[in-house]
């Protein structure tokens, strides 16, 4: 892609911190989220869910439910499309069970009724006969020979022979000769680690309002990270043409990867078709926990060899991820990200995707990477301790740089890992004294980032203001970033822009707001669309002046003749051109549709101080610093926000959050009281340092910043806690009981 409008310095708008355009609506309660929609004649939906972890569905009797006054429709699997395969097949199986319920909370039927209370009452009247089957929820247990088989047809050709059918995909990559590398090491540490499943924990439950007629035309309003994927998936699941379903994305109350797929949306559409009325479904929190995507839980082995001077000679990792009842656990990303921060001659990484009787995992911020990073960076920390080396110096010594052959294969382009490590080393946090009982941990982290299909449209108004339509739901202030980048190109003030997240009927296809892609890809598209409009503006000025188009250029919001040869004309401001654009050639708009392929990978380094109470095992995070390469921060305040949010979620994952399953295979902590995410009194202020090493694949150098921030915290905190407690913690979360057990075990060893 030509980067003719590339710019690294002298920004006028980019890098400033204006108020976000949607701020007013969001502080006054006016912003409309998923559950805030109503429609005339609307029904309310409720879903009947399996109480069993693994059971054959013998019979579903809906007679009593249908007899209840106010019940207008009941659907089961028979009411959805037949014969779907691949990911659509898995998603359908997940949103409505077929022959078997595969986890506690798996949907088996749904009701639409005239009120939410009646729908809920009716759901209780649906009688399902189950044949209970043996279940498994732990990743290691699911791989064991004796494990119950969930589905014997899921394993693909990559899986080596002799493994349990629950192992459905396999990844192996690396280079060099790890055995020869280990032979050169002065010290080798090999250790095993586990992490429990966590949930993205967005505060807004899944919600939608659907209308579908027997004519195959539908409307869907839903909270989603990507309404085009929702459109495509829902259309397939209810058996209609994609273009006949218009999807509007509501404001989104958090997603973090968990809203990149559909759950209640196809069900509401199927109910609506049957009842011939609009149907709204809103999940309750327990449904969110039981039936929507948590992360994978993991079991990992990591072996690293190091010389006395801190050079890593070889590294090897095995990453086993259970991803619920369907293939898709992001084990290849665990494997590929695990050692990416380091320049290694000898490296090997192996991943196993394992199915178990849990909900289908969904992406969660840098899916797969945080867990792998926890295992790898814990071993590096232990090596540094044993060899008496400074953890940042060792990381600097081995750091990946431009041209380094990455652990996952290709060579890195321009990257900023070393810059984050240097910033960490010189940050006052790193040299601040620790109090007794406190420990300090550091960790690096890596994430790929993503481009994806992107369409942006930009329309100028007669008064010289500008409307931008983007297709990526705004999950954290991206409207502001789009307006800043467009202002930079058009040379008019930020306040002149209105940015709208357009529906699927208004704009071409857009990939989901995921992969840290929005500021990168929608930003690039906005710049290109604005540039397209600028070219048209210049053309109008050229026509007015009677000079060639290429003799006009755009600067400071005005068309100007390019030098004396072009002629001596006064610059024409944008609003002068748009004022009568209808009669000088028609409305002026800019467009851009493409799949940008230069996302640019990203690295971060975190420093954390933790204090462990040996009596209770409770950990307090007392100081936290995030240092990350943003390429170029378009709106630095929202970049800081991404850093802080990633760190906070990482703190929750490291210390508190976990899915707890009972012997019966049922989730035991499906409300926020028992699944405890960090609250305000748990956290310190989170300091941030934005490093800017421009991404060559974006006109202004942007790298995505949303995901990398959750990669280092697990290890950084584990290293800090291990230092504070004097014992290595190998199992996340490091909840008080686990820390106490580790302290006790150590006392016994002593």
């Amino acid at each position, binding site marked *: 892609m030509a980067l003719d409008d590339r710019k690294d310095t002298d920004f006028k708008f980019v890098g400033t911190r204006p108020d976000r355009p949607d701020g007013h609506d969001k502080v006054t309660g006016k912003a409309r989220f998923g559950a805030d929609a109503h429609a005339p004649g609307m029904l309310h939906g409720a879903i009947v869910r399996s109480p069993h972890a693994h059971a054959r569905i013998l019979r579903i009797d809906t007679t009593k439910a249908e007899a209840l006054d106010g019940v207008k429709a009941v659907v089961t699997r028979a009411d959805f499309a037949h014969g779907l395969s691949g990911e659509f097949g898995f998603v359908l199986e997940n949103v409505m069970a077929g022959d078997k319920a595969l986890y506690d909370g798996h949907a088996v039927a749904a009701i639409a009724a005239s009120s939410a209370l009646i729908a809920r009452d009716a759901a209780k009247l649906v009688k399902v006969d189950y044949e209970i089957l043996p279940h498994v929820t732990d990743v290691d247990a699911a791989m064991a020979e004796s494990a119950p088989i969930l589905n014997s047809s899921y394993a693909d050709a990559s899986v080596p022979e002799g493994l349990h059918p629950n192992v459905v995909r396999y990844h192996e990559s690396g280079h060099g000769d790890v055995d020869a590398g280990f032979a050169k090491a002065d010290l080798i540490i090999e250790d095993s680690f586990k992490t429990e499943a966590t949930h993205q*924990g967005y505060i807004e439950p899944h919600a939608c309002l659907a209308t579908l007629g027997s004519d195959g035309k539908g409307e869907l309003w839903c909270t989603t990270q990507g309404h085009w994927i929702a459109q495509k998936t829902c259309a397939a699941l209810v058996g209609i043409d994609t273009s006949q379903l218009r999807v509007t994305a509501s404001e989104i109350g958090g997603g973090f990867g968990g809203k990149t797929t559909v759950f209640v949306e196809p069900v509401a559409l199927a109910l609506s078709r049957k009842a011939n009325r609009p149907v709204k479904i809103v999940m309750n929190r327990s449904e969110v926990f039981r039936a929507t995507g948590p992360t994978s839980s993991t079991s990992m082995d990591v072996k690293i060899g190091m010389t006395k001077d801190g050079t890593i000679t070889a590294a090897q990792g095995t990453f086993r991820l259970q991803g619920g009842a369907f293939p898709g656990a992001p084990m290849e990303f665990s494997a590929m990200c695990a050692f990416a921060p380091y320049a290694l001659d000898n490296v090997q990484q192996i991943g196993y995707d394992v199915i178990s009787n849990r909900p289908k995992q969904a992406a969660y911020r840098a899916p797969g990477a945080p867990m792998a990073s926890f295992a790898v960076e814990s071993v590096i920390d232990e090596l540094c301790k044993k060899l008496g080396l400074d953890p940042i110096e060792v990381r600097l010594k081995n750091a990946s740089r431009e041209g380094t052959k990455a652990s996952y294969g290709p060579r890195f382009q321009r990257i900023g890992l070393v810059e984050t490590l240097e910033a960490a080393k010189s940050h006052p946090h790193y040299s601040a004294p620790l109090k007794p009982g406190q420990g300090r941990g550091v960790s690096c982290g890596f994430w790929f980032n993503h481009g994806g299909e992107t369409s942006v449209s930009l329309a100028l108004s007669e008064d010289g203001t500008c409307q931008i339509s983007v297709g990526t739901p705004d999950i954290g202030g991206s409207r502001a970033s789009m307006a800043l980048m467009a202002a930079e190109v058009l040379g008019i003030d930020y306040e002149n822009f209105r940015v709208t997240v357009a529906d699927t009927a208004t704009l071409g296809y857009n990939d989901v707001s995921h992969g840290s892609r929005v500021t990168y890809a929608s930003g690039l598209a906005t710049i290109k669309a604005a540039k397209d409009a600028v070219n048209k503006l210049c053309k109008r000025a050229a026509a007015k002046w009677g000079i060639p188009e290429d003799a006009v250029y755009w600067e400071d919001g005005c068309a100007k003749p390019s030098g004396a040869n072009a002629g001596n004309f006064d610059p024409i401001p944008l609003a002068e051109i748009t004022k009568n654009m209808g009669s000088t050639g028609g409305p002026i708009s800019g467009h851009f549709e493409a799949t940008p392929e230069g996302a640019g990978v990203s690295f971060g380094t975190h420093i954390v101080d933790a204090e462990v109470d040996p009596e209770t095992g409770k950990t307090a995070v007392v100081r936290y610093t995030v240092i990350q390469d943003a390429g170029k921060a378009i709106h630095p305040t929202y970049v800081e926000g991404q850093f802080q949010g990633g760190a906070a979620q990482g703190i929750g994952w490291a210390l508190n959050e976990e899915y707890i399953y009972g012997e019966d295979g049922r989730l035991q902590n499906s409300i926020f009281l028992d699944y405890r995410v960090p609250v305000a*009194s748990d956290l310190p202020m989170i300091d941030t340092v934005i490093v800017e090493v421009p991404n060559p694949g974006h006109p202004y150098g942007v790298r995505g910043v949303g995901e990398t921030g959750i990669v280092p915290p697990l290890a950084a905190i584990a290293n800090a806690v291990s230092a504070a407690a004097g014992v290595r913690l190998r199992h996340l979360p490091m909840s008080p009981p686990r820390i106490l057990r580790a302290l006790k075990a150590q006392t016994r060893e002593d």
Partner: protein
Amino acid sequence: MKNTHVTTTINGDPVEYLCDTRETMLDVLRDRLNLTGAKEGCGTGDCGACSITVDDRLVCSCLMLGVEAEGKKITTVEGMAEGENLHPLQKKFIEYAALQCGICTPGILVAAKSLLEKNPNPTEEEVRFWLAGNLCRCTGYDKIIRAVMDTAADMRGAS
């Protein structure tokens, strides 16, 4: 099912409604009165997204029944601004980017306003503990705490 008639005051306006005795105050606000500013994040009083005040006391509206509003004085986020003028907390939240997705924001604003009415000069620790019942998953709370502290300082300076 027979509904109950309730007479109450919401954001200064006299309001009457009928509701099922099982409906929560949050259900009534959102589904019967179209006041969708208060959000349901959990339904169990853990997340605070549905925070309102009842006779000046901070309450999770998902833990209160609609019929309990009889004769009470309710305020919600919709009643925070005065006419076209935003409350200082609302302004500061925008200025400080103390929101990312914005779903927890109405509840946090209502809770923070209630704090500042009781304690115009809170310490950081007091703000953190007061807001411990309001979950935010996006921000890590940093900018929220700063926005509340700075609003408090501004309001003290102004009075």
